[in-house]
């Protein structure tokens, strides 16, 4: 099947962006640069989603991973001391375990890639997907959707408990609430 030139260009641009950034993340000596390279990786993957006509998933990928996860990474990395010292930030531990993991993953993916009977489907015209996803989430998949939200609620409560433990205790013992400086900039 002949792929239109523009589509091929777009695909390769996003694929190379994602792969090159991922390689940079893995091999960079500076952990802050690695975190920023993750930005390119997320955008590359989002672009591939868009390329597959999954506009909603692509945009959510950018929103959740760039807007949430990456910002949290950057926060954590930037607030860590001695971050410019690779000995501290990127310690090379557990190399044998890592090698085993790598080989197993590589073997598995390689096996999958070469044994799966890939089919070439006709090009699907890009169309609205949001309403179908909404119907599916609130229709046949309502139970997994709700279970996932319960999981998130549990995580949220755990975060509140960890961050506000002292205040919670003082309320339990009936003491006056302490006026200790609170963490006001925290994002849940």
């Amino acid at each position: 099947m002949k792929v239109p030139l523009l589509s091929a260009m777009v695909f390769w641009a996003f694929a190379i962006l994602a792969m090159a950034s991922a390689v940079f993340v893995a091999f960079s000596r500076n952990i802050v640069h690695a975190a920023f390279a993750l930005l390119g990786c997320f955008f590359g993957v989002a672009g591939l989603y868009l390329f597959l006509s999954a506009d909603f998933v692509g945009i959510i990928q950018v929103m959740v991973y760039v807007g949430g996860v990456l910002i949290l990474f950057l926060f954590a990395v930037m607030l860590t001391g001695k971050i410019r010292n690779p000995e501290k930030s990127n310690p090379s531990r557990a190399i044998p375990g890592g090698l085993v993991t790598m080989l197993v993953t590589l073997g598995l993916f390689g096996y999958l890639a070469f044994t799966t009977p890939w089919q070439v489907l006709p090009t699907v015209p890009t169309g609205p997907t949001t309403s179908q996803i909404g119907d599916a989430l609130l229709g046949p998949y309502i139970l997994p959707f709700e279970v996932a939200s319960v999981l998130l609620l549990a995580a949220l409560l755990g975060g509140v408990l960890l961050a506000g433990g002292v205040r919670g205790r003082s309320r339990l013992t009936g003491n006056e609430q302490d006026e200790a400086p609170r963490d006001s900039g925290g994002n849940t």
Partner: protein
Amino acid sequence: MDRWDGGDMKELAEWVIRDLFSKNPDTWQYTWAIYLAGMALAAVICLGFVAVFAGPVTWVERRTAGRIMSRIGPNRVGPQGVLQWLADGIKNLLKEDLIPDDADKPLFRLAPYLVFSGMFGTFVVLPFGANLIAADLDIGVLYLMAVTTLVVVGLLTAGWASNSKWALYGGIRSAAQLVSYEVPIAFALLVVVISTGSLSTQAIIKAQGGWPWQWFVAKNPFTFIAFFLLLTSAMAEGNRIPFDLPEAESELVAGYNTEYSGMRFLFFLFEEWANLWIMGAITTLCFLGGWQIPGVSPEKISASSGWTFVGWQLLSFAIFAAKVSWIVFIVIQARWTLPRLRVDQLMSTCWKYLVPMTLVCIAGVLFMDLYIVQGGITDKIIRWIMTLLGAAVIVLFFLRARYNYKMDKDKYPGLRNEKMWYPPYRMP
């Protein structure tokens, strides 16, 4: 050769292929070139528009600030100083591009581009008129939310790469602020999305009408509140006073852009002022009827041809621009009227007030949509009450501004022993 009735740049490109080259866009081998040309054209038009907006608006802002503070403001370059922005631009272009020795140089260079592309990316889905939009994405509003996250990353980058504590504080503050205020913005936009049933920006505008009582702001009390919540949160998202803690000059020198100079510094300012248009455009398209011309339906615009069509487009653009400018002017006045919040106040404003209020608005809008028939008598009464309320707010705004100007006029001679310029449009 038939008429171009397309909605966005892609359809324009297809029209060009079909009618100017008489080819089928699906099979022609050079389709990609026309698409690329269309994209480049849209980008150039938007970039030119941003530049022509962000420049003069700096002058408007500084003159307004001057008037509010009873001083003159820039009035030397050109008549009344209208060319001040060009002078500033040339000055910044000619300045030396300084990079601190200890800065993380690649990231320091990268940060302004990230901030700028995050800002500029929103123009893809912001409409300018009835058929004037770069791409009418089906997920337009979500795209708006997603692409602005790049600005956060850029500000954090700038803060960290400068290797200065002021810049780092500014960057971290701005990230905390932008990530927090994204929540009320998303909820306020959800109110609009619920009322429309679509995420596309053009569909949101088409769900409203040209007259004020057909706008979403007048739809019911909850959308009315959501409009003000969206405007407030958008001001915070755009780092405007009273929410400009990331660059609070009394504490942080200049925040994330402390170490920047020359053109890179200008990019941050450019983003800030271009943000004014984005802020105004989002509130206008969501709540104030967008480009809708009173008494003319979108179908009539699409059905017209030739110069009538062009005329409708220009008129719709003029209406949209007028509404946006009005919002921009209010935001500018708010900047020079209100004091800056503290960091903890900033966070509690967001999480304790804005977020719960937007959630109430969502519940209220759902309720109203379920139980009030669109076009019914109750709906009409509610819309009229809300329109009158909105008109009352505007009248109050004018009375208040007039009162302040008169007070200025009476008190100024006693303070400075010279006459205050009055009425306000008479500038020295």
